[in-house]
């Protein structure tokens, strides 16, 4: 599941965006645009809605660039976190996912929380930690993260009850975090 050949940006750009460097935001859009777009499309089918959301995400990236800490996460992970937050909140607000209920609150994510992260890891660490998960959980992770299936779709495909899918994914994520903490790995999330 983990790809170690992520594209490497020649020079980190978020600090340059935060510093107001000329051209930095355009570099950011060019480099991370496909990542944000692909992520958003995994959550939202409608192309026009996805485009609106991507524009909102880049506005947020611009606003939050100064909060980015390279010792905690890679730029792509930081940007991916912002993109996922926005996409998840959008789905919740729309109530489009039949498994969820619409919610009127602004966001389910406290903000900011990045600086409190305590388990930095790199791509290789992530890969080796994934291998410690039970085979069944790894399969669920693959269906969820790689194939982009929703929980109900995964339940359909695997024949597992929806509640079981949900619980195993949650506990798998917790187990992964705990393994990384125990390993005491000191690099940052992903290498791109």
């Amino acid at each position, binding site marked *: *599941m983990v790809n170690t050949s992520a594209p490497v940006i020649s020079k980190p750009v978020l600090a340059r965006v935060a510093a107001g460097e000329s051209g930095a935001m355009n570099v950011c859009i060019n480099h991370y645009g496909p990542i*944000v777009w692909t992520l958003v499309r995994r959550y939202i089918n409608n192309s026009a809605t996805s485009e609106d959301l991507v524009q909102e995400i880049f506005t947020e990236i611009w606003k939050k660039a100064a909060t980015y800490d390279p010792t905690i996460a890679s730029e792509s992970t930081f940007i991916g976190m912002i993109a996922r937050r926005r996409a998840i909140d959008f789905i919740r607000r729309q109530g489009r996912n039949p498994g969820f209920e619409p919610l009127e609150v602004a966001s389910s994510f406290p903000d900011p929380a990045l600086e409190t992260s305590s388990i930095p890891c790199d791509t290789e660490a992530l890969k080796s930690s994934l291998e410690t998960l039970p085979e069944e959980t790894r399969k669920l992770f693959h269906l969820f993260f790689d194939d982009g299936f929703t929980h109900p779709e995964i339940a359909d495909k695997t024949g597992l009850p929806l509640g079981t899918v949900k619980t195993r994914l949650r506990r798998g994520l917790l187990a992964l975090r705990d393994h990384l903490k125990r390993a005491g790995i000191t690099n940052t999330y992903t290498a791109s």
Partner: protein
Amino acid sequence: MNPSDSENRYNELLAGRALGDLMLEEERELALLGEQSGISPDADLELLAASLAVESVLQRLEPMPAGLAARLHRKADMIGLPGGSPINYPQVPAWKNILLNPMIGWAAAAAILILSLVLMRTEAPLPPELAAARLRSQDKDLIERNFEGLGEFKQASGQVLWSDAQQRGFMILTGIPANDPRKAQYQLWIVDPTRDADAPVDGGVFDIPGNGSPVVVPIAAKLALSKPQAFVITLEHPGGVVKSKQENLVALAKN
């Protein structure tokens, strides 16, 4: 539920939030458990989920649609983000226009001056380019058209954004020659299909500075508009005119 159970449940809900699968009652439960425990959630699980998701999409990246990429870059330029050309936004010399234009009475001049001062006070903290970005994000039915240069102004180009709901809008213009306000000024005209087609609405007088940078110009429509069909820029006498002879057409944006 003993403390250990509470902590386990709290962590499970945090994982659910990171995975995006919390239901309404779980959301409430998470908030409650957070309050009770006094623990501030960290970003570990969110970063971990984001890391897994990003690693996955890197293997199957899709390019952004060209139109979206172009809009993002324009937006970056427009809201003054680094990377865009520097943007100038001249003051619309409304009060000066009024004083120079004999067709408008002093009472109207005073009323518009007061209105201008009120608008300046309420909008002063928000530069036009930020207001334009906000307009884009606020109004899903925003009208956006591209300008094309006309006649000797072939180099002119740009965009117009208009919100019927807010009765506000902006132009972003490039390639229009600088004017000497003592000799001539640019004026915007707006064709509103609900009004007389022969009498477009005055959209305000403005100047173009001489450094060739993109210029953001707020629209100062003198009447309420409804789904405008066309925006026309002309070059007029200083202070603008009440009715244009359309002798110097500069640019046109239409449906």
